[in-house]
């Protein structure tokens, strides 16, 4: 199966894509890349772990994370910058799917 990078810009409150991610990621190498309000997931241990149950890796954007001034509650999340995000999209995963 093609490796999959899921992308979301939605806050935990807005985000309803968990089941879609879980269903389409099953059996594939997969990760989730969090932009904008989606980085708030990193400040909530329970919601963060839920995401980790659906994909193997979770990346959050450094600038979006820093802007919000919140404590990191899910140490498994990896903080990345834009060049790294481009690398994930163009080289490390075969498909990108916005959710």
């Amino acid at each position, binding site marked *: *199966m*093609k490796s999959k990078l899921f992308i979301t810009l939605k806050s935990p409150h807005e985000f*309803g*894509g968990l*089941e*879609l991610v879980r*269903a*389409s990621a*099953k*059996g*594939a190498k997969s990760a989730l890349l969090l932009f904008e309000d989606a980085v708030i997931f990193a400040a909530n241990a329970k919601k963060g772990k839920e995401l980790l149950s659906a994909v193997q890796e979770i990346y959050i954007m450094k600038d979006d994370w820093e802007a919000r001034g919140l404590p990191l509650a899910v140490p498994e999340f990896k903080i990345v910058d834009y060049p790294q995000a481009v690398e994930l999209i163009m080289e490390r995963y075969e*498909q*990108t*799917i*916005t*959710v």
Partner: protein
Amino acid sequence: MAESLLILVTKPPYGFEEAFAGLRAGLGMLASGLVPVSNALLVGEGTLNAVAAQRPEAVRMPSNMEAINDMLDFEAKVYVVKEDLLHLVGDVPLMEGVEVIDWERARKVIDEHDMVTTF
């Protein structure tokens, strides 16, 4: 160098233009002759776009059923994930021509396409 684009429809009809816009984008690919394969996969609330009893004229919106039929006319596939529909509104009748599938098959559909874009 993508040869196929999957239109992943997650938004329900009429409130947003998204589902209509997505089906239109799929049609654009097929009409261009540059992207040989473009199909649509309806998931979650997106499955409601294939409900047979829709009456878009009630809200003066363009018909998403017509947009689905346009894709079918170009011999594209329009897949609907049954589990998602059942979970949402039960077993309501769907339009003719759409292909009802389960998530097992939906995963294969996603994999058969080079690119996926979500509406």
